[in-house]
Protein backbone atom coordinates (compact mmCIF):
# COMPACT_ATOMS: atom_id res chain seq x y z
CA UNK A 1 0.00 0.00 0.00
CA UNK A 2 2.82 2.33 0.93
CA UNK A 3 4.46 1.59 -2.42
CA UNK A 4 1.26 2.37 -4.33
CA UNK A 5 0.85 5.68 -2.52
CA UNK A 6 4.50 6.47 -3.22
CA UNK A 7 3.99 5.77 -6.95
CA UNK A 8 0.77 7.81 -7.06
CA UNK A 9 2.47 10.72 -5.34
CA UNK A 10 5.54 10.69 -7.61
CA UNK A 11 3.54 10.29 -10.80
CA UNK A 12 1.19 13.10 -9.75
CA UNK A 13 4.17 15.31 -8.93
CA UNK A 14 5.74 14.54 -12.33
CA UNK A 15 2.49 15.37 -14.13
CA UNK A 16 2.12 18.62 -12.18
CA UNK A 17 5.70 19.64 -12.99
CA UNK A 18 5.15 18.85 -16.68
CA UNK A 19 1.90 20.82 -16.63
CA UNK A 20 3.60 23.82 -14.99
CA UNK A 21 6.45 23.79 -17.54
CA UNK A 22 4.14 23.40 -20.55
CA UNK A 23 1.60 25.89 -19.19
CA UNK A 24 4.25 28.52 -18.47
CA UNK A 25 5.76 28.06 -21.92
CA UNK A 26 2.33 28.38 -23.49
CA UNK A 27 1.60 31.61 -21.59
CA UNK A 28 4.93 33.15 -22.57
CA UNK A 29 4.79 32.12 -26.23
CA UNK A 30 1.10 32.29 -27.13
CA UNK A 31 1.01 35.96 -28.12
CA UNK A 32 4.12 35.69 -30.32
CA UNK A 33 2.81 32.48 -31.89
CA UNK A 34 -0.53 34.06 -32.81
CA UNK A 35 1.25 37.10 -34.18
CA UNK A 36 3.48 34.86 -36.34
CA UNK A 37 0.52 32.85 -37.59
CA UNK A 38 -1.32 36.02 -38.54
CA UNK A 39 1.78 37.50 -40.23
CA UNK A 40 2.38 34.24 -42.13
CA UNK A 41 -1.24 34.12 -43.25
CA UNK A 42 -1.04 37.73 -44.43
CA UNK A 43 2.20 37.10 -46.32
CA UNK A 44 0.63 34.09 -48.03
CA UNK A 45 -2.42 36.15 -48.98
CA UNK A 46 -0.39 38.99 -50.47
CA UNK A 47 1.89 36.55 -52.30
CA UNK A 48 -1.15 34.87 -53.86
CA UNK A 49 -2.40 38.28 -54.94
CA UNK A 50 0.94 38.90 -56.65
CA UNK A 51 2.54 41.21 -54.09
CA UNK A 52 5.91 40.67 -52.42
CA UNK A 53 9.51 41.69 -52.93
CA UNK A 54 9.68 44.20 -55.77
CA UNK A 55 5.93 44.79 -55.76
CA UNK A 56 4.79 46.37 -52.48
CA UNK A 57 1.22 46.16 -51.28
CA UNK A 58 -0.60 49.41 -52.18
CA UNK A 59 -2.05 51.37 -49.28
CA UNK A 60 -5.43 51.38 -51.03
CA UNK A 61 -5.71 47.58 -50.82
CA UNK A 62 -8.00 46.24 -48.09
CA UNK A 63 -8.92 42.73 -46.94
CA UNK A 64 -12.47 42.11 -45.69
CA UNK A 65 -13.09 38.85 -43.83
CA UNK A 66 -16.41 37.00 -44.15
CA UNK A 67 -17.01 34.15 -41.70
CA UNK A 68 -19.61 31.51 -42.52
CA UNK A 69 -21.42 29.65 -39.76
CA UNK A 70 -24.05 26.93 -39.62
CA UNK A 71 -26.69 27.96 -37.06
CA UNK A 72 -28.86 25.20 -35.66
CA UNK A 73 -32.07 26.00 -33.85
CA UNK A 74 -35.02 23.76 -32.99
CA UNK A 75 -36.71 22.73 -36.21
CA UNK A 76 -34.43 24.47 -38.68
CA UNK A 77 -30.92 25.24 -39.82
CA UNK A 78 -29.61 28.58 -41.02
CA UNK A 79 -26.44 29.75 -42.70
CA UNK A 80 -24.97 32.76 -40.93
CA UNK A 81 -22.52 35.13 -42.60
CA UNK A 82 -20.58 37.41 -40.29
CA UNK A 83 -19.81 40.34 -42.60
CA UNK A 84 -17.90 43.59 -41.95
CA UNK A 85 -20.15 46.63 -42.21
CA UNK A 86 -19.46 50.34 -42.19
CA UNK A 87 -21.27 52.79 -40.00
CA UNK A 88 -20.14 56.42 -40.12
CA UNK A 89 -16.74 55.31 -41.38
CA UNK A 90 -16.33 52.81 -38.54
CA UNK A 91 -16.03 49.04 -39.16
CA UNK A 92 -18.49 46.85 -37.30
CA UNK A 93 -19.89 43.36 -37.87
CA UNK A 94 -23.32 42.10 -38.82
CA UNK A 95 -24.56 38.52 -38.75
CA UNK A 96 -26.71 37.93 -41.82
CA UNK A 97 -28.65 34.65 -41.48
CA UNK A 98 -30.10 32.95 -44.54
CA UNK A 99 -32.40 29.95 -44.67
CA UNK A 100 -31.49 26.90 -46.74
CA UNK A 101 -33.29 28.37 -49.75
CA UNK A 102 -31.05 31.42 -49.67
CA UNK A 103 -33.66 33.82 -48.33
CA UNK A 104 -32.98 36.35 -45.60
CA UNK A 105 -33.96 34.96 -42.19
CA UNK A 106 -32.42 37.35 -39.69
CA UNK A 107 -29.96 40.20 -39.28
CA UNK A 108 -28.14 41.15 -36.08
CA UNK A 109 -25.40 43.59 -35.23
CA UNK A 110 -22.52 41.82 -33.49
CA UNK A 111 -20.36 43.64 -30.95
CA UNK A 112 -16.89 42.91 -32.35
CA UNK A 113 -13.92 44.92 -33.52
CA UNK A 114 -11.50 43.86 -36.28
CA UNK A 115 -8.93 42.44 -33.83
CA UNK A 116 -11.53 40.44 -31.88
CA UNK A 117 -13.08 39.10 -35.08
CA UNK A 118 -9.86 37.21 -35.86
CA UNK A 119 -10.14 35.19 -32.64
CA UNK A 120 -12.51 32.27 -33.06
CA UNK A 121 -13.46 32.17 -29.38
CA UNK A 122 -14.30 35.88 -29.21
CA UNK A 123 -16.23 35.64 -32.47
CA UNK A 124 -18.26 32.62 -31.37
CA UNK A 125 -19.06 34.24 -28.03
CA UNK A 126 -20.23 37.47 -29.67
CA UNK A 127 -22.42 35.58 -32.15
CA UNK A 128 -23.98 33.38 -29.46
CA UNK A 129 -24.75 36.50 -27.44
CA UNK A 130 -26.80 38.06 -30.26
CA UNK A 131 -28.64 35.00 -31.62
CA UNK A 132 -30.08 34.16 -28.23
CA UNK A 133 -30.36 30.96 -26.18
CA UNK A 134 -31.26 27.51 -27.48
CA UNK A 135 -29.22 27.84 -30.67
CA UNK A 136 -25.94 26.26 -31.67
CA UNK A 137 -23.33 27.55 -34.07
CA UNK A 138 -20.62 25.75 -36.03
CA UNK A 139 -17.88 27.62 -37.86
CA UNK A 140 -17.78 26.47 -41.51
CA UNK A 141 -15.18 28.55 -43.37
CA UNK A 142 -13.98 32.03 -44.05
CA UNK A 143 -13.52 34.04 -47.20
CA UNK A 144 -11.65 37.27 -47.78
CA UNK A 145 -12.89 39.88 -50.19
CA UNK A 146 -10.04 42.04 -51.49
CA UNK A 147 -10.78 45.61 -52.51
CA UNK A 148 -8.59 48.27 -54.05
CA UNK A 149 -9.91 51.82 -53.66
CA UNK A 150 -13.21 50.31 -52.59
CA UNK A 151 -13.58 48.20 -55.74
CA UNK A 152 -13.55 44.41 -55.51
CA UNK A 153 -10.44 42.99 -57.15
CA UNK A 154 -10.06 39.47 -55.75
CA UNK A 155 -11.27 36.79 -53.35
CA UNK A 156 -9.20 34.60 -51.06
CA UNK A 157 -10.74 31.28 -50.06
CA UNK A 158 -9.58 28.97 -47.31
CA UNK A 159 -10.49 25.32 -47.73
CA UNK A 160 -9.88 21.89 -46.31
CA UNK A 161 -10.73 18.65 -48.08
CA UNK A 162 -9.62 15.00 -48.02
CA UNK A 163 -6.31 14.04 -49.61
CA UNK A 164 -4.80 10.59 -50.15
CA UNK A 165 -3.66 10.33 -46.51
CA UNK A 166 -5.45 12.93 -44.39
CA UNK A 167 -6.71 16.43 -45.09
CA UNK A 168 -5.26 19.04 -47.41
CA UNK A 169 -5.57 22.64 -46.23
CA UNK A 170 -5.32 25.26 -48.97
CA UNK A 171 -5.76 28.93 -49.73
CA UNK A 172 -6.90 29.93 -53.18
CA UNK A 173 -6.97 33.38 -54.77
CA UNK A 174 -9.55 34.24 -57.43
CA UNK A 175 -9.97 37.48 -59.35
CA UNK A 176 -13.34 39.26 -59.58
CA UNK A 177 -14.30 37.02 -62.53
CA UNK A 178 -13.43 33.92 -60.44
CA UNK A 179 -10.30 33.10 -62.46
CA UNK A 180 -7.60 31.48 -60.34
CA UNK A 181 -4.77 33.84 -59.40
CA UNK A 182 -2.84 31.39 -57.29
CA UNK A 183 -2.95 28.40 -54.96
CA UNK A 184 -1.06 27.76 -51.75
CA UNK A 185 -1.07 24.39 -49.98
CA UNK A 186 -0.95 25.39 -46.32
CA UNK A 187 -0.93 21.93 -44.74
CA UNK A 188 -0.86 18.38 -45.98
CA UNK A 189 0.24 14.97 -44.75
CA UNK A 190 0.66 13.28 -48.10
CA UNK A 191 3.61 10.95 -48.72
CA UNK A 192 6.92 12.85 -48.71
CA UNK A 193 8.45 12.82 -52.18
CA UNK A 194 5.18 11.67 -53.77
CA UNK A 195 1.82 13.23 -52.84
CA UNK A 196 3.53 15.94 -50.79
CA UNK A 197 4.78 17.37 -54.10
CA UNK A 198 1.34 19.03 -54.41
CA UNK A 199 2.90 22.02 -52.67
CA UNK A 200 5.63 22.37 -55.29
CA UNK A 201 5.39 25.17 -57.86
CA UNK A 202 5.40 22.80 -60.82
CA UNK A 203 2.17 21.23 -59.60
CA UNK A 204 0.19 23.90 -57.76
CA UNK A 205 0.87 26.59 -60.38
CA UNK A 206 -0.92 24.44 -62.96
CA UNK A 207 -4.15 25.85 -61.49
CA UNK A 208 -3.12 29.46 -62.16
CA UNK A 209 -5.11 31.32 -64.82
CA UNK A 210 -7.97 28.79 -64.93
CA UNK A 211 -11.38 30.35 -65.39
CA UNK A 212 -14.21 29.00 -63.29
CA UNK A 213 -15.66 27.16 -66.30
CA UNK A 214 -12.32 25.52 -67.14
CA UNK A 215 -11.75 24.63 -63.49
CA UNK A 216 -15.15 22.92 -63.21
CA UNK A 217 -14.26 20.57 -66.07
CA UNK A 218 -10.63 19.91 -65.13
CA UNK A 219 -9.39 16.33 -65.20
CA UNK A 220 -6.10 14.83 -64.07
CA UNK A 221 -4.07 13.10 -66.75
CA UNK A 222 -1.24 10.61 -66.28
CA UNK A 223 1.10 12.08 -68.87
CA UNK A 224 4.61 13.45 -68.49
CA UNK A 225 4.70 17.16 -67.71
CA UNK A 226 6.19 18.94 -70.77
CA UNK A 227 9.60 20.33 -69.90
CA UNK A 228 8.89 23.86 -71.11
CA UNK A 229 5.63 24.00 -69.16
CA UNK A 230 7.46 22.85 -66.03
CA UNK A 231 10.04 25.61 -66.45
CA UNK A 232 7.25 28.16 -66.83
CA UNK A 233 5.43 26.81 -63.76
CA UNK A 234 8.61 27.08 -61.72
CA UNK A 235 9.23 30.62 -63.00
CA UNK A 236 12.56 29.67 -64.57
CA UNK A 237 11.85 31.55 -67.82
CA UNK A 238 11.49 35.22 -68.73
CA UNK A 239 8.12 36.74 -67.78
CA UNK A 240 7.00 37.03 -71.42
CA UNK A 241 7.79 33.34 -72.05
CA UNK A 242 6.05 32.28 -68.85
CA UNK A 243 2.94 34.24 -69.90
CA UNK A 244 2.99 32.73 -73.41
CA UNK A 245 3.38 29.15 -72.22
CA UNK A 246 0.81 29.51 -69.44
CA UNK A 247 -1.66 30.83 -72.04
CA UNK A 248 -1.03 27.72 -74.17
CA UNK A 249 -1.85 25.40 -71.29
CA UNK A 250 -4.65 27.34 -69.60
CA UNK A 251 -7.41 25.09 -70.99
CA UNK A 252 -5.45 21.83 -70.72
CA UNK A 253 -5.95 19.23 -68.00
CA UNK A 254 -3.78 18.87 -64.90
CA UNK A 255 -0.66 16.73 -65.23
CA UNK A 256 -0.64 14.21 -62.36
CA UNK A 257 2.35 13.93 -60.05
CA UNK A 258 4.47 10.88 -60.80
CA UNK A 259 3.48 8.13 -58.38
CA UNK A 260 0.79 10.29 -56.74
CA UNK A 261 -2.19 10.34 -59.10
CA UNK A 262 -4.68 10.04 -56.23
CA UNK A 263 -3.25 13.04 -54.37
CA UNK A 264 -3.30 15.03 -57.63
CA UNK A 265 -6.91 14.07 -58.25
CA UNK A 266 -8.03 14.72 -54.67
CA UNK A 267 -6.55 18.23 -54.78
CA UNK A 268 -8.10 18.98 -58.16
CA UNK A 269 -11.52 17.69 -57.10
CA UNK A 270 -11.27 19.55 -53.80
CA UNK A 271 -10.58 22.84 -55.58
CA UNK A 272 -13.37 22.26 -58.07
CA UNK A 273 -15.83 21.71 -55.23
CA UNK A 274 -14.51 24.65 -53.25
CA UNK A 275 -14.76 27.16 -56.09
CA UNK A 276 -18.14 25.87 -57.31
CA UNK A 277 -19.68 26.24 -53.84
CA UNK A 278 -18.03 29.62 -53.27
CA UNK A 279 -19.41 31.12 -56.48
CA UNK A 280 -22.90 29.82 -55.69
CA UNK A 281 -22.84 31.09 -52.10
CA UNK A 282 -21.35 34.48 -52.94
CA UNK A 283 -24.02 35.13 -55.59
CA UNK A 284 -26.73 34.42 -53.01
CA UNK A 285 -25.04 36.54 -50.33
CA UNK A 286 -24.49 39.45 -52.71
CA UNK A 287 -28.15 39.34 -53.76
CA UNK A 288 -29.35 39.37 -50.15
CA UNK A 289 -26.95 42.16 -49.14
CA UNK A 290 -28.21 44.23 -52.04
CA UNK A 291 -31.88 43.53 -51.35
CA UNK A 292 -31.54 44.32 -47.66
CA UNK A 293 -29.33 47.35 -48.33
CA UNK A 294 -26.74 46.18 -45.83
CA UNK A 295 -23.77 48.56 -45.95
CA UNK A 296 -20.91 46.07 -46.12
CA UNK A 297 -17.34 47.35 -46.26
CA UNK A 298 -16.60 45.50 -49.52
Amino acid at each position, binding site marked *: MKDILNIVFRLTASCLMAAVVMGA*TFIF*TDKAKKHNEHAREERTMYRLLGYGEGKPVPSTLALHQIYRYVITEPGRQLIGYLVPTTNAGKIGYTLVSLDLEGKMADRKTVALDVEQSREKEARDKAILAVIGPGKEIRFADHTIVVTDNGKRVAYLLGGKFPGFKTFINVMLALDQQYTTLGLEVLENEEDPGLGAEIEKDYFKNQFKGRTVDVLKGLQVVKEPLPDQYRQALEGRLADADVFRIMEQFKDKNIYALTGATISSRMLTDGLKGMVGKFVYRLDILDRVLKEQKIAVSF
Partner: protein
Amino acid sequence: MTTSSNTKPPWELLSRGILSENPIFRLALSMCPAVGISTTVMNGLMLGVAVLLVQVFSSVTISLFKNQIHPRIRIPTYTLTIATWVTVIDLVMAAYLPGAYAKMGIFIKLIVAFAIITMRLEMFACKENATDSFWDGVGMGLGFMVGMVVIGFVRELLGSGAILGYDVLGFKPLLFFILPSAGFFVVGLMMAFFNWVELVYKRRKGIQL
Protein backbone atom coordinates in the same frame (compact mmCIF):
# COMPACT_ATOMS: atom_id res chain seq x y z
CA MET B 1 17.37 4.69 -9.15
CA THR B 2 20.94 3.57 -8.66
CA THR B 3 23.79 5.68 -9.87
CA SER B 4 27.14 4.69 -11.27
CA SER B 5 30.29 6.72 -11.68
CA ASN B 6 31.92 5.39 -14.85
CA THR B 7 32.46 8.89 -16.25
CA LYS B 8 33.76 8.85 -19.80
CA PRO B 9 35.41 11.63 -21.78
CA PRO B 10 32.97 13.68 -23.91
CA TRP B 11 34.60 12.67 -27.20
CA GLU B 12 34.05 8.99 -26.40
CA LEU B 13 30.38 9.59 -25.57
CA LEU B 14 30.00 11.61 -28.75
CA SER B 15 31.72 9.14 -31.07
CA ARG B 16 29.84 6.22 -29.55
CA GLY B 17 26.49 7.72 -30.63
CA ILE B 18 27.75 8.57 -34.09
CA LEU B 19 29.67 5.37 -34.88
CA SER B 20 29.78 2.28 -32.67
CA GLU B 21 26.24 2.71 -31.27
CA ASN B 22 24.68 4.65 -34.10
CA PRO B 23 20.92 4.58 -33.38
CA ILE B 24 19.95 3.68 -36.93
CA PHE B 25 22.78 1.64 -38.38
CA ARG B 26 23.90 -0.18 -35.23
CA LEU B 27 20.98 -0.18 -32.79
CA ALA B 28 18.19 -0.18 -35.44
CA LEU B 29 15.91 2.01 -33.32
CA SER B 30 13.18 4.48 -34.38
CA MET B 31 13.23 2.93 -37.83
CA CYS B 32 9.59 3.43 -38.84
CA PRO B 33 9.42 7.23 -38.50
CA ALA B 34 12.98 7.43 -39.82
CA VAL B 35 12.27 5.64 -43.07
CA GLY B 36 8.90 7.32 -43.43
CA ILE B 37 10.42 10.79 -43.40
CA SER B 38 13.93 10.41 -44.81
CA THR B 39 13.02 10.91 -48.46
CA THR B 40 15.28 13.95 -48.83
CA VAL B 41 18.47 15.28 -47.24
CA MET B 42 16.60 18.29 -45.84
CA ASN B 43 13.90 16.12 -44.23
CA GLY B 44 16.60 13.97 -42.69
CA LEU B 45 18.45 16.99 -41.37
CA MET B 46 15.33 18.60 -39.91
CA LEU B 47 14.22 15.42 -38.15
CA GLY B 48 17.80 14.94 -36.94
CA VAL B 49 17.95 18.43 -35.41
CA ALA B 50 14.57 17.92 -33.74
CA VAL B 51 15.65 14.56 -32.25
CA LEU B 52 18.96 16.07 -31.10
CA LEU B 53 17.21 18.85 -29.17
CA VAL B 54 14.65 16.56 -27.52
CA GLN B 55 17.24 13.89 -26.72
CA VAL B 56 19.62 16.34 -25.02
CA PHE B 57 16.93 18.09 -22.95
CA SER B 58 15.26 14.81 -21.93
CA SER B 59 18.56 13.10 -21.03
CA VAL B 60 19.67 15.99 -18.82
CA THR B 61 16.24 16.23 -17.14
CA ILE B 62 16.09 12.51 -16.32
CA SER B 63 19.67 12.57 -15.12
CA LEU B 64 18.95 15.45 -12.76
CA PHE B 65 15.79 13.86 -11.34
CA LYS B 66 16.89 10.21 -11.45
CA ASN B 67 16.82 9.80 -7.68
CA GLN B 68 13.23 11.01 -7.47
CA ILE B 69 11.86 8.63 -10.13
CA HIS B 70 10.23 5.49 -8.75
CA PRO B 71 11.63 2.44 -10.64
CA ARG B 72 8.17 1.04 -11.35
CA ILE B 73 6.99 4.15 -13.16
CA ARG B 74 10.19 5.06 -14.95
CA ILE B 75 8.87 4.45 -18.50
CA PRO B 76 5.74 6.64 -18.02
CA THR B 77 8.00 9.28 -16.48
CA TYR B 78 10.35 9.15 -19.50
CA THR B 79 7.39 9.48 -21.87
CA LEU B 80 6.06 12.41 -19.87
CA THR B 81 9.48 14.08 -19.92
CA ILE B 82 9.89 13.60 -23.68
CA ALA B 83 6.34 14.85 -24.32
CA THR B 84 6.98 17.92 -22.16
CA TRP B 85 10.18 18.84 -24.02
CA VAL B 86 8.57 18.17 -27.39
CA THR B 87 5.74 20.54 -26.43
CA VAL B 88 8.10 23.20 -25.06
CA ILE B 89 10.37 23.11 -28.14
CA ASP B 90 7.33 23.12 -30.43
CA LEU B 91 5.81 26.17 -28.70
CA VAL B 92 9.08 28.12 -28.45
CA MET B 93 9.99 27.50 -32.09
CA ALA B 94 6.49 28.41 -33.29
CA ALA B 95 6.72 31.67 -31.36
CA TYR B 96 10.29 32.82 -31.90
CA LEU B 97 11.67 30.89 -34.90
CA PRO B 98 8.71 30.86 -37.31
CA GLY B 99 10.93 30.34 -40.37
CA ALA B 100 12.57 27.20 -38.96
CA TYR B 101 9.29 26.05 -37.44
CA ALA B 102 7.56 26.13 -40.82
CA LYS B 103 10.04 23.47 -41.96
CA MET B 104 10.54 21.53 -38.71
CA GLY B 105 7.14 21.74 -36.99
CA ILE B 106 5.80 18.49 -38.38
CA PHE B 107 8.94 16.58 -37.36
CA ILE B 108 9.05 17.82 -33.79
CA LYS B 109 5.57 16.50 -33.02
CA LEU B 110 6.58 13.06 -34.30
CA ILE B 111 9.33 12.62 -31.75
CA VAL B 112 7.25 11.66 -28.69
CA ALA B 113 7.11 8.08 -29.94
CA PHE B 114 10.81 7.69 -30.78
CA ALA B 115 12.27 4.55 -29.19
CA ILE B 116 15.81 5.87 -29.39
CA ILE B 117 15.11 8.65 -26.91
CA THR B 118 13.35 6.41 -24.38
CA MET B 119 16.11 3.84 -24.75
CA ARG B 120 18.89 6.36 -23.99
CA LEU B 121 17.00 7.58 -20.93
CA GLU B 122 16.66 3.99 -19.69
CA MET B 123 20.15 2.81 -20.59
CA PHE B 124 22.17 5.91 -19.76
CA ALA B 125 20.56 9.06 -18.37
CA CYS B 126 18.88 7.34 -15.41
CA LYS B 127 22.25 6.03 -14.23
CA GLU B 128 24.78 8.72 -15.09
CA ASN B 129 25.40 12.34 -14.13
CA ALA B 130 23.97 15.31 -16.04
CA THR B 131 27.22 16.20 -17.87
CA ASP B 132 27.71 12.68 -19.23
CA SER B 133 24.02 12.49 -20.10
CA PHE B 134 24.32 15.75 -22.01
CA TRP B 135 27.23 14.43 -24.12
CA ASP B 136 25.52 11.09 -24.60
CA GLY B 137 22.38 12.92 -25.77
CA VAL B 138 24.41 15.05 -28.17
CA GLY B 139 26.22 11.97 -29.52
CA MET B 140 23.03 9.96 -30.00
CA GLY B 141 21.25 12.95 -31.56
CA LEU B 142 24.15 13.57 -33.94
CA GLY B 143 24.34 9.86 -34.75
CA PHE B 144 20.65 9.84 -35.60
CA MET B 145 21.07 13.01 -37.67
CA VAL B 146 24.02 11.58 -39.60
CA GLY B 147 22.04 8.41 -40.29
CA MET B 148 19.01 10.34 -41.49
CA VAL B 149 21.04 12.61 -43.74
CA VAL B 150 22.87 9.66 -45.32
CA ILE B 151 19.61 7.79 -45.94
CA GLY B 152 18.00 11.00 -47.24
CA PHE B 153 20.94 11.58 -49.58
CA VAL B 154 20.69 8.11 -51.16
CA ARG B 155 16.90 8.21 -51.42
CA GLU B 156 16.72 11.76 -52.80
CA LEU B 157 19.43 11.09 -55.37
CA LEU B 158 18.07 7.77 -56.58
CA GLY B 159 14.36 8.53 -56.11
CA SER B 160 14.14 12.14 -57.28
CA GLY B 161 17.45 12.64 -59.08
CA ALA B 162 18.09 15.63 -56.82
CA ILE B 163 20.20 16.76 -53.88
CA LEU B 164 18.84 19.32 -51.41
CA GLY B 165 16.00 19.98 -53.84
CA TYR B 166 18.30 20.80 -56.77
CA ASP B 167 17.79 18.60 -59.78
CA VAL B 168 21.25 17.10 -60.44
CA LEU B 169 20.45 14.12 -62.65
CA GLY B 170 17.61 15.58 -64.73
CA PHE B 171 15.55 12.40 -64.31
CA LYS B 172 14.28 10.06 -61.58
CA PRO B 173 16.42 6.91 -61.75
CA LEU B 174 14.47 4.70 -59.31
CA LEU B 175 11.18 6.11 -58.02
CA PHE B 176 11.02 3.10 -55.67
CA PHE B 177 13.54 4.82 -53.40
CA ILE B 178 10.96 7.45 -52.44
CA LEU B 179 8.63 4.81 -50.99
CA PRO B 180 8.87 3.94 -47.26
CA SER B 181 9.81 0.34 -48.02
CA ALA B 182 12.92 1.54 -49.85
CA GLY B 183 13.98 3.29 -46.65
CA PHE B 184 14.47 -0.11 -45.03
CA PHE B 185 16.37 -1.21 -48.12
CA VAL B 186 18.79 1.71 -47.77
CA VAL B 187 19.10 1.16 -44.00
CA GLY B 188 19.93 -2.51 -44.67
CA LEU B 189 22.67 -1.55 -47.12
CA MET B 190 24.09 0.99 -44.69
CA MET B 191 24.04 -1.55 -41.85
CA ALA B 192 25.96 -3.97 -44.03
CA PHE B 193 28.46 -1.19 -44.77
CA PHE B 194 28.91 -0.37 -41.07
CA ASN B 195 29.39 -4.06 -40.24
CA TRP B 196 31.97 -4.36 -43.00
CA VAL B 197 33.84 -1.28 -41.71
CA GLU B 198 33.84 -2.75 -38.19
CA LEU B 199 35.11 -6.07 -39.52
CA VAL B 200 37.95 -4.46 -41.44
CA TYR B 201 38.84 -2.26 -38.46
CA LYS B 202 38.98 -5.19 -36.07
CA ARG B 203 41.05 -7.30 -38.46
CA ARG B 204 43.58 -4.52 -38.89
CA LYS B 205 43.81 -3.97 -35.14
CA GLY B 206 44.13 -7.70 -34.55
CA ILE B 207 41.01 -7.82 -32.41
CA GLN B 208 39.46 -11.28 -32.18
CA LEU B 209 36.17 -11.48 -34.09
